[in-house]
């Protein structure tokens, strides 16, 4: 089954390119220790999901590119075309000239209705080229105007028009400081709208990815390209094919459906985070060896302590024994130090993957009580290595990991809203204070729901 990707705004398009490039590069990579036949099945499965064939044999990404100004799309198209390995469809993009001015209201209320028909037509054309549609993957940022506002609008229209298909939004959470001043407003408006119309929100924080670049990848002068490539690597690790059942010889057919089924048991809880191990620069990779026990131990602790990367994991945090308070941390209120999960998915790729022991992830203490661990935890795997990493593990989790950033975001936006600063910029395009209040209410609910999780 295929996934149609919608890339929105500068961020969405820049990242989208890196994602398709990472996916394609991986299919051309040396397959490690799996057989030629297995590798071919892997390549075919990846291609079916993300690419389609064109006349001269160059694979075409199953993607629609949307932006309200032309420069980024032009660059993205030419970068893909120049590589000669894959490209975007000739007529797969929609572009305007005036931008969205970092204004959510402009993206949602002006651009949305005005260009609805053109954009939905483009998406329809891409959908028609799929034999079978798994769903939509929408890549957007929250801080700006196009990705955020127009992205929210398009997601809503997708819900209306393709009600039986799934939608996963890849959301970029902006740096806490120094991107866009009104980013907190744009973010709460985006999140609240997507919470109603999307099926799952896969969230990447710029601050977290930046730290990975600095500490794990040892990059000195970090550029947006670096951030995007780390992100693309993580996404590739999640979306590349894996076997459907233990001992099965077929690759999973419905990646989005499977992800939703395992990770989003309840519509009140749809925020997902990704962690990836190992993640390091190529130079070091050649000198490193990893064992599955080592990798999984670190990954588990990253989950429990809410760490977003290997470096600096807090090993003090332990899951609570049932009935007893967490080790050394007695508190009346829910202690967010320990990260309670609703559901987790571990994806293992590479050498000796069948020997990997994931029992540690099935510990009931990790999870909230309303699901049996056997339902809360799943594992997918393939012996086919991913992108030069002999062994790699990804963890997609629906947990309390994002509560703190969300709480801070809502707090800052609320502070600004209390002073009414910048509100006139939104109301001039048809929004009202009520719309803001609705968004705040919804997100406070989400914060409270996640915050109250406990074993």
């Amino acid at each position: 089954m295929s996934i149609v990707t919608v890339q929105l705004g500068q961020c969405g398009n820049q990242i989208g390119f890196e994602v398709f490039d990472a996916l394609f590069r991986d299919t051309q990579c040396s397959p490690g220790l799996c057989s030629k036949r297995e590798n071919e099945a892997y390549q075919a499965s990846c291609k079916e999901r993300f690419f389609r064939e064109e006349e001269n044999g160059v694979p075409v990404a199953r993607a629609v590119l949307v932006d309200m100004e032309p420069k980024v799309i032009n660059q993205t198209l030419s970068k893909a075309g120049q590589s000669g390995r894959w490209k975007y469809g000739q007529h797969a993009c929609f572009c305007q000239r005036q931008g969205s001015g970092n204004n959510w209201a402009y993206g949602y209320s002006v651009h949305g209705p005005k260009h609805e028909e053109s954009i939905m037509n483009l998406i329809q054309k891409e959908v028609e080229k799929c034999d079978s549609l798994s769903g939509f993957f929408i890549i957007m940022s929250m801080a700006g105007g196009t990705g955020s506002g127009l992205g929210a609008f398009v997601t809503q229209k997708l819900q209306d028009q393709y009600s039986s298909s799934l939608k996963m939004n890849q959301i970029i959470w902006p740096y806490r400081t120094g991107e866009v001043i009104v980013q907190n407003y744009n973010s709460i408006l985006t999140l609240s709208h997507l919470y109603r119309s999307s099926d799952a929100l896969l969230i990447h924080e710029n601050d977290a990815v930046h730290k990975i670049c600095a500490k794990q990848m040892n990059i000195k002068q970090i550029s947006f390209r670096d951030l995007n490539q780390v992100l693309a690597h993580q996404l590739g690790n999640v979306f590349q094919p894996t076997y459907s059942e233990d001992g099965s010889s077929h690759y999973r057919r419905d990646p989005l459906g499977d992800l939703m089924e395992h990770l989003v048991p309840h519509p009140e809880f749809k925020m997902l985070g990704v962690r990836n191990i190992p993640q390091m620069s190529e130079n070091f990779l050649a000198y490193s060896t990893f064992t599955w026990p080592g990798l999984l131990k670190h990954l588990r602790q990253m989950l429990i302590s809410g760490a977003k990367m290997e470096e600096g994991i807090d090993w003090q945090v332990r899951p609570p024994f049932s009935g007893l308070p967490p080790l050394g941390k007695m508190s009346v209120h829910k202690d967010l130090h320990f990260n309670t999960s609703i559901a987790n998915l571990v994806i293992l790729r590479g050498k000796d993957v069948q020997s990997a022991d994931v029992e540690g992830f099935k510990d009931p203490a990790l999870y909230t009580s309303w699901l049996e661990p056997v339902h809360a935890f799943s594992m997918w795997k393939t012996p086919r290595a991913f992108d030069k990493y002999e062994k790699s593990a990804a963890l997609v989790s629906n947990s309390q990991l994002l509560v703190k950033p969300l709480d801070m975001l809502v707090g800052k936006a609320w502070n600004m809203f209390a002073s009414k600063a910048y509100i006139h910029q939104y109301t001039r395009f048809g929004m009202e204070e009520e719309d803001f209040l609705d968004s705040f209410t919804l997100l406070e609910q989400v914060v409270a729901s996640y915050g109250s999780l406990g074993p």
Partner: protein
Amino acid sequence: MCAHTCACKHAVLIDMEEGVVNEILQGPLRDVFDSKQLITDISGSGNNWAVGHKVFGSLYQEQILEKLRKSAEHCDCLQCFFIIHSMGGGTGSGLGTFLLKVLEDEFPEVYRFVTAVYPSNEDDVITSPYNSMLAMKELNEHADCVLPIDNQSLFDIISKIDLVVNSGKLGTTVKPKSLVTSNVGTVTKRHKKPFDAMNNIVANLLLSLTSSARFEGSLNMDLNEISMNLVPFPQLHYLVSSLTPLYTLADVNIPPRRLDQMFSDAFSKDHQLIQADPRHSLYLACALIVRGNVQISDLRRNIERLKPALQFVSWNQEGWKTSLCSVPPVGHSHSLLALANNTCVKPTFMELRERFMRLYKKKAHLHHYLQVDGMEESAFAEAVSSLSALIQEYNELDATKSMPVPDVPRLSVAM
């Protein structure tokens, strides 16, 4: 000016006396400007805002509108107007602000950016306080964004450069192309007039402002984003600008100016285009427009470094807007334009009010204005009142400076 297509063909030049415009038309840029896009008269406005605004305003309104509509038609997408004029004279100030109203009525969706040159203390036009005050009211009400500039600051920048260029110190040879006052990359090779160098600084400001619209980068910024991020309340739209670097050293043995130094300089008074003290006042918002080989990590590192010394208003503690354009200006490897919405503009406005009151109390030269058809004395009172209200807004914000950040109770939800 149309931000997305060729700029010059869309310029409209207006002056009520012919000397300056004629010179432009006979100069090397004569082919760049469309001669049909000029409006001139003969006698000038006599340094009288009322003449510029009321007399020439009504006289030329139709013509101006016609030329604007024509220019607008040629644009794929009209995003904003750049209006450039002085505050102290008659035409720029009077007719310029009249034009502002016309643009608002005719093209309400298009942003109006004004680069206004405020009179210095030693300026020689006696009526400049009147003209400036009357123009301020119009800017308050009809401009989306104003970049105030004063000649004194521009002059100080030139003096600073001259000091370095002429100091003869070893290793201080400056690359001539890199001067912020330089017009290399432009057509005119030599500075013929004393204001040319100063005006080039302003030209460079506008180039930086539009760089993201003209070139690619990893974090683009359109002009409408400036207004969106830097104007939290409609009246508070005055932005202090500072440009760096002012020059590049030619001696290759001296290590290139460290990138971080550039960021520090942007927050130094020596680089500002208006006399003001943002460091000791309150920031409402700040934009950093970076050009050249600078990455997001450089930007973030410097924001973290400089933040502690700056005071931001409580509801915008992290009020930074940033953009990265890959292409640096001619002669530099990188450059930075900082735009600050800061209460430090208040003293400028207070001084303006004071100079105005000195004249107005004695009714000096008032008759020149009142004898213009349509000009009432109430216009003066309204203008003062408008400026006073603006100053009061800045006062109220300043009062919050040393107060602790208020704790705004959050919405509580039923669980």
